[in-house]
């Protein structure tokens, strides 16, 4: 066991972090009062593509862990970028790079709201008994507007899946594993960012002559939160490494359950400022709120965990 990045992994990690750090500024809702729903990191997308970072999972000497680092590090930016589908789920599922962004959805969610669908060029669908991979060209996609800091879309009509590429029944559990890990990584990143942001804020914000962060009531909650965040991070990386059903389900479960307390605490501690769209916090917390419901939410991950752990008699 060795829980540190190898020197190659460290180099990849540092390069990604460097690129992401150039893309941390989001435009705010200003005088127009028109909410900025989200801000897509187009330039970061190009930078990463140029460095072939989206292909890490399939690069000689690299694999799921390296791709996981990409998903995690890009997820910490308040700008949004689709990496879980394009760099992790897609390549590891199909063995090839797919046109990005890549949206991933359950059949029953296609006509409701799917992350990234209004921008996606590839759509991966969990059909229940099969997995379909299709180009979004010619699909009737309607963008959905929301405060959830993600591009969202839905299909007006369901496509003809018989014509689409099908990966077979055996691909279903593989897709769900990868998807759960991707979800856990994205969640870990946004949780960490929200807690980091809040920690910095409570160090500066003075009340009654002392920093908000010097009150033990605040300290204990943030400390419990950082424990949760670190747990999500390690569970997600372990799951990326192992590719196991149980690890993936556990990571997604812990991740989705960590969202409620952390969303609450980070918003509380930012005070009224955190309620405005002029503050950065909601770009993470609102994303988290959407991630919390993905793949059926924590109860589905719990059922998957139980199935993967105690299935026998």
């Amino acid at each position, binding site marked *: 066991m060795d829980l540190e990045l190898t020197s190659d992994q460290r180099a990849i990690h540092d390069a990604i972090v460097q690129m992401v750090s150039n893309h941390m500024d989001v435009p705010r*809702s200003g*005088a127009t*009062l*028109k*909410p900025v729903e989200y801000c897509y990191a187009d330039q970061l997308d190009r930078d990463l593509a140029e460095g072939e970072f989206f292909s890490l999972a399939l690069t000689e000497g690299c694999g799921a862990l390296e791709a996981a680092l990409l998903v995690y590090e890009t997820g910490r930016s308040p700008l949004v970028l689709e990496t879980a589908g394009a760099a992790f789920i897609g390549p590891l599922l199909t063995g090839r790079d797919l046109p990005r962004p890549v949206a991933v959805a359950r059949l029953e*969610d296609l006509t*409701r*709201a*799917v992350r990234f669908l209004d921008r996606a060029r590839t759509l991966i669908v969990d059909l229940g008994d099969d997995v379909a991979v299709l180009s979004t060209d010619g699909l009737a996609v309607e963008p*959905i*507007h*929301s*405060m*959830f800091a993600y591009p*969202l879309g839905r299909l007006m009509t369901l496509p003809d899946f018989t014509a689409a590429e099908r990966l077979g029944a055996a691909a279903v559990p593989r897709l769900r594993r990868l998807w759960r890990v991707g979800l856990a990584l994205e969640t870990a990143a946004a949780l960490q960012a929200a807690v980091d942001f809040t920690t910095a804020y409570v160090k500066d914000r*003075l*009340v*009654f*002559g002392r920093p908000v962060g010097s*009150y033990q*009531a*605040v300290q204990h909650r943030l400390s419990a939160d950082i424990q949760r965040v670190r747990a999500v991070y390690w569970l997600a990386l372990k799951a990326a490494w192992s590719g196991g059903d149980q690890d993936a389900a556990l990571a997604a479960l812990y991740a989705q359950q960590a969202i*409620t307390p952390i969303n*609450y605490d980070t*918003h*509380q501690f930012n*005070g*009224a400022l955190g*309620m*405005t*769209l*002029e503050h950065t916090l*909601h770009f993470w917390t*609102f994303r988290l*709120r*959407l991630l*919390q*419901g993905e793949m059926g*939410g*924590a*109860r589905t991950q719990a059922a998957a965990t139980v199935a993967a752990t105690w299935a026998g008699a």
Partner: protein
Amino acid sequence: MQLAYSSAERAFLAEVRAFLAPWRGLGQYLQGRDHAGLRAFYKALGVKNWLSLGWPVDHGGRGLPPIYEFLLWDEMAHARIARPPLSAGIVAKTIIRYGTDAQKARWLEPIRTGELMFSLGYSEPEAGSDLASLRTRAELGPEGYRINGTKIWSSSAQDSDYLWLLCRTGEVASRAAGLSLLIVDLRAPGLRIRPMAKMSGNVFCELFFDDVIVPVDQRIGPQDGAWKMMNASLADERHVQFPPKRVLADYETVRDWAMAHGLDRDPVVRERLAELAVDVLECQAHALRVLTAQGDDVRASIAAAANKRASTDTIQAIARAAMDFGIPAALTTAAPIEQLWRQTLEESLGGGTTEIMTSIIARQGLGLKA
């Protein structure tokens, strides 16, 4: 002990319900985006003399005990119409207690009839929970008070007539002992209002004061004497601060929505709904404690803190549960569930944060020292 409404109270409740019926849903989540509608509604209340239920009779009020105001605003919250207006509550009650005869004559009547809307100017960028550290200055000169500084988070300031301003008239370091209350015309020269978008989809305002002049006769009560008056008015309003039927309304919205989508067939959903129903009852119990503690300041303060904390926790839990059951359709702005979730997030901050409420319970209720 008498845990039932009197026949007079029941009759009043029936009258309230009948009166409110046509106004149901006016302020979707008690935010009142339809400002013209709200003004019309407050005027209609004025006609019934219901904005002044608790005021003394010789000030144009009905002189009724607090339970009547409670019943009215509780029903109002249930019907999602409006919150108690600042004007007829804190503003009027402070003027009745501390105002001069001239001030009473000038302000009470248009407030009673629902003519005048007030906004609250307490918080500042550097003074929220720690209100006594506020810095907006009012210098007394020949033409009146000259105001300079910044206020923030004033709800509805963009649509109101006057601001109930808390400002510093004493020494910089005077803290609570150097504060005064002024009524400021929101169209006064030198006052700039900047609306800010908030997550609920609504706005609150930042207010910049640049040599704004306020006539001396718009100071209510003694100079530097605001703190005591504020505490008194806080006590006056405890019973309507967070009506339990607001909590019930949120619960019913979520329950009905879950049933409409067949989600209640799921045992996990049923169990959660049942747990939340118990929490709703707990909030009702807290509200009754607030009512019965009226007159005993410490007990009422603890009960009100517990009520605010429990109620805001509960509405957030209700909204969150809905999102958890939620089919993804619940998650986009079109659906009321999602809007409910965003709106409830603010309730644990505005009007005193949950952490401050908890501190009150710890200090006053449990006798714990910081």
